[in-house]
């Protein structure tokens, strides 16, 4: 069943990075710690380039959807009102959406629904997150309390721990190896090195990853993605407006979405994430495509194990074979399969929660129109897939994008 035609007509992407904190005196002369980059500044960095790319002004924007995953990171309540006002989308409806690490793609899905329903013709989806002014331990804390307090958090299950439970299970059941896990961040850093928007532009080796410090075993430091400041924006329009304002619209032909159980122990298995598969199947069905048609993919690699499960759940390789697939360079541009995370992924490019899912779509747009840095350009790519996960499958969005 084909879905209503909605296109991406403008893209903007800040550099992802660690802007850190500043210590300044407050109004009473007391020293206090602040984010070095504010929501306001980040919103500017991605929104105005997107507007310019679309060739329009704020006058044409009828509504905005703002992705901010955690108010505590920014220290700002009702952040949508701030961001929309700051960039000058005033007197038009706005809202904040939140689905943990999938917040960005949910902003797109919400903007899509506003257009597909006929309510609005042109909508901006803006994702912003400022995280690095907090310590990693406190940032991890803010993310961990999204687990079930009563049955999980109190037993010391942190966020990396959820994914380590999958990794240990997959090692036992599917024969996943340490080296296979390490092949994922090696690839991410290989491509992230070339991406000007990436946070950590450094090549690494299998040994670097396999010998990095333990975080939640079997997962080590290089299995875990970055904590980042960043923003990304897409301007979206219905068919009529898109054709009018853009010579290069990118059509959303599949917009799959699903979820999985709140508690990790309620899952039927811990070798895959069934929510990934459900969301992927929905997007494939809507677009009439299968994994075989995808030229370039962006999957949610918050942890190396997550990318391996995504290969399997989205049908890039057989179930149980994700580790081998990765080690055999299945996801490289010159490999046998679908080039995946050739922007560096969450691991090297970075993971500013509310922006991540939008940043994937921005890079997919650039890939399909041939404008990314040469060493990471997939030749003649026509169809892209993006996959963005909140928590460990509690929220999943999968989009198919076509020229």
């Amino acid at each position, binding site marked *: 069943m084909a879905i209503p035609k909605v296109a991406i007509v403008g893209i903007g992407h800040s550099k992802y990075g660690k802007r850190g904190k500043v210590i300044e005196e407050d109004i009473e002369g007391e020293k206090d710690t602040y984010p070095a980059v504010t929501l306001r500044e980040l919103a500017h960095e991605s929104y105005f380039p997107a507007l310019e790319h679309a060739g329009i002004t704020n006058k044409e924007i009828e509504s905005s959807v703002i992705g901010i995953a955690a108010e505590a990171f920014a220290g700002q309540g009702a952040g949508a009102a701030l961001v929309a006002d700051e960039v000058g989308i005033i007197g038009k409806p706005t809202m904040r959406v939140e689905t943990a690490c999938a917040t960005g793609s949910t902003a797109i899905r919400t903007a899509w629904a506003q257009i597909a329903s006929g309510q609005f013709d042109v909508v901006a989806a803006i994702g912003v997150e400022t995280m690095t002014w907090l*310590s990693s*331990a*406190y940032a*991890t*804390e803010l*993310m*961990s*309390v999204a687990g079930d*307090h*009563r*049955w*999980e*958090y*109190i*037993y*010391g*299950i*942190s*966020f*990396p*721990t959820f994914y*380590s*439970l*999958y990794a*240990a*299970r997959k*090692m*036992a*059941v599917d024969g996943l190896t340490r080296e296979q896990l390490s092949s994922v961040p090696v690839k991410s850093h290989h491509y992230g090195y070339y991406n000007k928007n990436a946070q950590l532009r450094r090549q690494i080796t299998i040994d670097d990853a396999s010998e990095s*410090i*333990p*975080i*939640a*075993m*079997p997962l080590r430091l290089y299995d875990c993605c970055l904590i980042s400041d960043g923003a990304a924006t897409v301007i979206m329009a219905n068919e009529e407006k898109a054709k009018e304002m853009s010579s290069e619209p990118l059509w959303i032909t599949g917009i799959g979405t699903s979820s999985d159980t709140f*508690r*990790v*122990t*309620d899952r*039927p298995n*811990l070798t895959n994430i069934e929510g990934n598969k459900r969301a992927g199947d929905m997007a494939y069905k809507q677009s009439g495509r299968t994994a075989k048609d995808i030229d370039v993919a962006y999957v949610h690699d918050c942890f190396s194990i997550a990318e391996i499960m995504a290969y399997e759940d989205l049908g890039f390789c057989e179930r149980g074979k994700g580790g081998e697939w990765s080690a055999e360079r299945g996801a490289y541009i010159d490999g046998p399969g679908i080039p995946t995370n050739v922007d560096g992924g969450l691991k090297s490019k970075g993971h500013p929660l509310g922006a991540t899912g939008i940043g994937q779509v921005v890079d997919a747009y650039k890939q399909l129109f041939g404008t990314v840095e040469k060493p990471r350009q997939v030749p003649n790519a026509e169809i892209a897939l993006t996959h963005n996960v909140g928590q460990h499958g509690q929220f999943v969005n999968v989009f198919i994008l076509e020229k």
Partner: protein
Amino acid sequence: MSEREMGFVVELSSDVKNKQRMTAEFKKFIAGLEEGKFLATKCASCGKKFMPPRFTCPCGGKDLEWFEVNPEGTLYTWSIVHFAPDGIAKQVNVPYPLGVIELEDGLKLAAHLKGLTTKPKVGMKVKVVPQELDNGNMAYFIKPA
């Protein structure tokens, strides 16, 4: 040995702990622990079993009955946490091992893993054991059977 040294159940961080009310099903589960029992629920309509217990079933059933679960099972998966978030790190020494035990009919519980003499291994025989904490609260941990 203090609870901290034993790597025990952690308190919720101050931001969130006051918001976790004891619901009726949780109280009943805790009362079971005090008697050394692990209680789960079963849907009278579709037969599905729930551990942790639920009072409503996704099938629409609202008639769920309590039953006692055999505390012995196998280690479904494990983790050894070396880097804990702030709220946990303040209370527990790292590294600490965690496990998920698989009980009858695929029911699972996550908890600290204690008393290991070897590396944790998926499939090893383990049991879940109720434990009264220093503060009088009831919790549980997993240990080799």
